[in-house]
């Protein structure tokens, strides 16, 4: 988890890459559409998308002669892992509290 989050954080630390990620988040888009919306060349957009894809943040599918990028639903796996730790912490806090109540009797 820590590694995946670190990779994703690093990928999104770059402002241009973050802008590209947000554009993909607004709706599926091809490289040309993304490049048209931002002051970035197509080759540079392609390079940034490659990094985002390796970080598990976007996924691409071929449609005709172009590739369309979307948010990667597997990115939700990281959310799940995060929630797993969240609830683990909360239940541990509840156990400590409940057992403390028992001992205080």
């Amino acid at each position, binding site marked *: 988890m820590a590694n995946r989050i670190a990779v994703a954080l690093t990928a999104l630390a770059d402002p241009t890459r973050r802008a590209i990620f947000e554009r993909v988040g607004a709706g599926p888009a091809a490289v040309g559409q993304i490049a048209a919306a931002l002051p970035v060349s197509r080759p540079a957009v392609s390079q940034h998308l490659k990094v985002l894809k390796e970080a598990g943040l976007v996924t691409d599918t071929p449609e005709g002669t172009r590739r369309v990028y979307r948010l990667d639903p597997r990115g939700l796996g990281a959310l799940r892992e*995060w*929630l*797993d730790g969240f609830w683990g912490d909360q239940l541990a806090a509840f*156990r400590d509290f409940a057992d403390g109540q028992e001992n205080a009797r």
Partner: protein
Amino acid sequence: MTIAPIVQSVTVAVPPDRAFVLFTGSIGRWWKRGMTIGAKPHEDVVIEPFVGGRWFERDEDGAEVDWGRVLAWEPPGRVLLGWQIDAAFRPDPDLTTEVEVTFVPDGNGTSVTLTHRHLERFGESAERIAAQLGGGWPGLLQLFADLTMEDA
């Protein structure tokens, strides 16, 4: 697309009826500080004890921030809560995932099992969330980064 639910269990030393009361009625006393979503730290967390009841935090500034609703209220064995918080930890009345907590006798104590399910609904609304927040992911990652800072 479905995502496996989160299932977590702990065993506590009190019987189920007591565990149920402490979990639901005293949630504001054991919920970890900093793990809430309002602008200010929470003063209390409230689960109203009936179906349709509100689940919310009351913050130090008096603000009440909704977390969701009570979907089933079956003391001492089970409570089902609607979690109306999105992937970026913001209230979202249009999104409900479920948090079920069961209380089963275990020796002199209770086995408490929490299940957070229908997580794929985060995905169904991911694009909407992303559009609203400039990306649900950055919000989540920022939250994680903040928590990491607190731990450090």
